[in-house]
């Protein structure tokens, strides 16, 4: 074998290798920094090993942020999934109106989430916002949407839902349109009703697509920053300070770099574990869907 031929596999892996290094280098460096007490007030820091992580886990603020993050991610992903799939099912009956709605539906995805949050912040403003203006005839014009902890969290989730439900709907719609037709034809011949068809055929075969959407949305929601920061800055009190906001405040605003990075590493571990669990389920669900389609 000539030397060129022997070298070829190694040359071919160079782009992948560079990409891997490009990903791993900052990550490794970040991980390394968490072992020090690096901050603006201590630019030449001492090695503290895992002390930053110990501090993170013993802080009440961390557990509050973790809880808020989970509430937000589960709430947003769940509502977006239900709404997205519903919208996809409605749009699947391809009428002219459906096709027009499909085009409109994609609009929120074209707006940067931070801009969407600012628009919503204006709309939710109690005295001049359009939401309270519309609710005024119902006697509900005085709602202070983001002034209470629950209101602030629900408002943030609502903005997330507004921005990302179309993403779930589009994925689910693509899934619906790629399902095999024969099981449905067989069902129709057997006189199966809409609900039965949906429960026994559509949903099992659609699950892999829905789960892909859930994985993306859940992971993204765990990492949320822009929507909440633009809408509430983490307030009132600490009620919407998710892990990303806490990390940003620690690392950038308060300049405790190592400590801030420790927060992001913990968040990375949470997202990684959640993704692993969901992806494992995705495999199982894909196999089940294939079985339904083959029947």
């Amino acid at each position, binding site marked *: 074998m000539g030397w060129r031929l022997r070298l070829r596999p190694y040359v071919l892996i160079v782009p992948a290798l560079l990409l891997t290094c490009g990903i791993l*280098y900052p990550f490794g460096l970040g991980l390394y920094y968490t072992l020090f007490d690096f901050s603006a007030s201590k630019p030449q820091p001492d090695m503290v090993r895992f002390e930053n992580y110990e501090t993170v886990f013993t802080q009440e603020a961390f557990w509050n942020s973790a809880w808020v993050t989970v509430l937000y991610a589960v709430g947003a992903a769940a509502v977006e999934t239900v709404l997205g799939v519903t919208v996809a099912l409605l749009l699947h009956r391809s009428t002219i109106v459906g096709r027009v709605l499909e085009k409109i539906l994609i609009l929120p995805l074209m707006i940067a989430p931070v801009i969407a949050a600012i628009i919503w912040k204006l709309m939710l403003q109690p005295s001049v916002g359009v939401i309270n203006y519309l609710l005024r005839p119902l006697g509900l014009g005085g709602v202070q949407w983001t002034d209470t902890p629950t209101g602030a969290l629900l408002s943030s989730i609502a903005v997330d839902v507004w921005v990302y439900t179309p993403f779930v709907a589009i994925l689910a719609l693509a899934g619906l349109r790629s399902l095999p037709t024969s099981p449905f034809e067989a069902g129709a011949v057997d006189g199966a009703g809409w609900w039965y068809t949906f429960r026994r055929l559509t949903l099992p075969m659609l699950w892999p697509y829905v789960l892909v959407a859930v994985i993306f949305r859940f992971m993204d929601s765990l990492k949320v920053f822009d929507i909440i920061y633009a809408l509430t800055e983490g307030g009132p009190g600490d009620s919407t300070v998710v892990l990303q906001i806490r990390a940003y405040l620690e690392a950038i605003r308060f300049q405790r770099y190592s400590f801030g990075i420790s927060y992001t590493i913990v968040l990375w571990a949470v997202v990684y574990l959640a993704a692993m669990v969901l992806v494992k389920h995705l495999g199982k669900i894909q196999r089940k869907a294939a079985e339904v389609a083959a029947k």
Partner: protein
Amino acid sequence: MDMHVHDRRRFLALTAAAAATPLLAACGAGFGGDDNKSDGSAADDVTGSFDWKREKGTTVKALLNKHPYTDALIADLKSFTEKTGIKVEYDVFPEDNYFDKLTVDLSSGRASYDVFMLGAYMVWQYGPPGWLEDLGPWMRNSAATGAEWDQADFFPNLLQADQWSLKAGAPLGQGGQYALPWGWETNVVAYNTDVFKRLGLKPAETFDELRELAGTIKRKAPGAGFDGMYGIAVRGSRSWATIHPGFMTMYARNGLQDFTVEGGKLTPAMNTPQAVAFTEDWAGMVKQGGPPSWTSYTWYQCSSDLGAKKAGMLFDADTAAYFQAVEGASPASGKIAFHPGPKGPDGSLATNMWIWSLGMNAKSKKKSASWLFLQWATGKEHLLKSAITHNHIDPVRKSIAADGAYKDKMRHLPGFIETFETVVDQTKIQFTPQAQFFDATTSWAAALQEIYGGQGARSVLDGLAGDLADKVG
């Protein structure tokens, strides 16, 4: 075949080693980039007689915050270039992102910007890591500083606000001069004269009166023809900026402190019985007479509500009201008057201040040219022109505050000059200088929001003090 496997392993091992080299190098290089430090000041290199043209042909890079003071500076930059032959390139960022941009830039250890705007609080954050040039040696060097700059012309409390020894808890006015006062704000009450007249009200002289007044306006103003008007606009967002204007001013007038300092150790004092009572009263005032959606209020909303006749009063920077009060600026222009605000129980008019200062990057490679720029930007000629022909008000120099043309310009705003002259000597930084200022005040703002939301002031402030004791003490 064995040989092939061996080769592949060796290749992978070598590649891994090569990939790890920069990582290890980065680790070995330490943190924060280049850390060359010199004990001597670059100001010592400037000798001979003072010459504005000394750095002709140089370009200075400035980072600026979007602000009317900045507009006045940019409008006059041509004069600087004509005077010195130095070109100024600048980037302007809105305030929401400005300090993050500056912090990240300075912490990178590079000299992307030679000069920049900052507040006195930022000196406490940027000073200890060595990011700010000590301007004292430049000011003292007659070869670097022209006689007409006239240091004695600055209001002394403003110059002192940018001086610090970099030791937590040490008073201001000692140590290095880490920035120069350029434009400032004093925190007073501005009010809508129309609503006061119609409801027969007078500006409050005590805090109790202010709370009462805020509630009265919110209750009665809508019925008197001021649709949707509430009593008092004060900041409420979860940010350090919520604490420093009206809240800290009234807190200080009540004789309260953020920290007590003993033997260099800081102890949080936001949970003393008096501080708890005051904070409860403040939150109560906001609930009874403050804006809806207060927890998102920054100075932009407060200022625009006063201008839009949505707020009867504003307890914030005098400039925030001024920008609405000038002719044609807002529906309320011509109807806004100024008052020093409530006195403390002992008659105190202690007022907290904000100073837009100008600082120099300690890593700048063009310090001499940068100093000429700072000297010009804080000099009498530019500041007087900016005060008279633009909106660079609240002069940092005594000569401008006393200038006839400036006074003529401000005279049409009821109470502005009188209020300024009443509080100017009592306006200073009311916070205790320390590097964790932003953490402490952001947490304080969050605590204020929780109390406003109905949580017990005592327990919330005890929690805040306990949390801060570990970080600051």
